[in-house]
């Protein structure tokens, strides 16, 4: 699996947070992370979702999602070929590293 280009923009979830994303396109890749809680570095699968500039105030216009539980839920629901846009809503339950996620895939493909 290819390494994603820098800069990385890892989304840090807060317990109970809900956020909607409009996914314009997406990429799968991997990167090495250094957990802040003392666990050793490891290479993980990353889902990079590109979103409209209006949904994020700062550069770059994408988020890197690293939770294996979240990536596992999102991957099958994202449009084939990496092309969107699609809208998804994510709620985080619990704190890392044991966060669970509720994911809603909204029905309409945006045009």
């Amino acid at each position, binding site marked *: 699996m290819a390494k994603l280009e820098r800069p990385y923009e890892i989304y840090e979830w807060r*317990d*109970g947070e809900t956020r909607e994303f409009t996914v314009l396109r997406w990429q799968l890749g991997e990167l090495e992370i250094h957990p802040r809680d003392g666990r050793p570095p490891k290479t993980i699968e990353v889902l990079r979702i590109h979103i409209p500039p209006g949904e994020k105030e700062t550069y770059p216009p994408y988020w890197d999602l690293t939770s*294996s*539980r979240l990536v*596992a*839920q*999102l*991957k*099958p*629901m994202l449009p084939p070929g990496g092309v969107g846009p699609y809208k998804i809503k994510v*709620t985080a*339950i*619990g704190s890392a590293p044991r966060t*669970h*996620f*509720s*994911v*809603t*895939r*909204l*029905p309409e493909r945006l045009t």
Partner: protein
Amino acid sequence: MGKRPYTPWEIMMISEWVAKTFPDARWQTNVRLGKIQPRLPDGTYTEDEARGLGLWRRRVDAIVYLRDRLLLVEAILRADPGKISILKLYEMLVPQTPELVEFRDLPIQKVLLYCIEDPVLNVLAEKEGILPIQYVPSFFDRWFSKLAGRKKRTPRSDFLEGT
């Protein structure tokens, strides 16, 4: 021996199944069910605080919002009869769930999604009005190769003969 990396197989399975089966429907994974019960007697919780409390409720693997019904889906790779009672409980919790109030009038179809069959489970499920669906996910070989040998076969069901 190193610790085996965590892989959320069941989440992967249900996400793949709903995405393939209902590409145009609205659906949601890990859905909280039941009442939100704040314990402060004066009810001074804000909307955000009450929602936070609601996160600790039971959760069903997925709900598919169809025009004429709600699908309540639990997924498991090796079929487990315990899921029958879990689905029955979740069905009872749906009418009490504030987030699902707009769907209260829709009939509920309970669905048990599994990969390795247990014939006992299919018999029980039918008796309880649950639709068992077998689904072989795209990652089956990868998952199956990591199973212990005794877990690779279907449980015996001969005691069901004559029932």
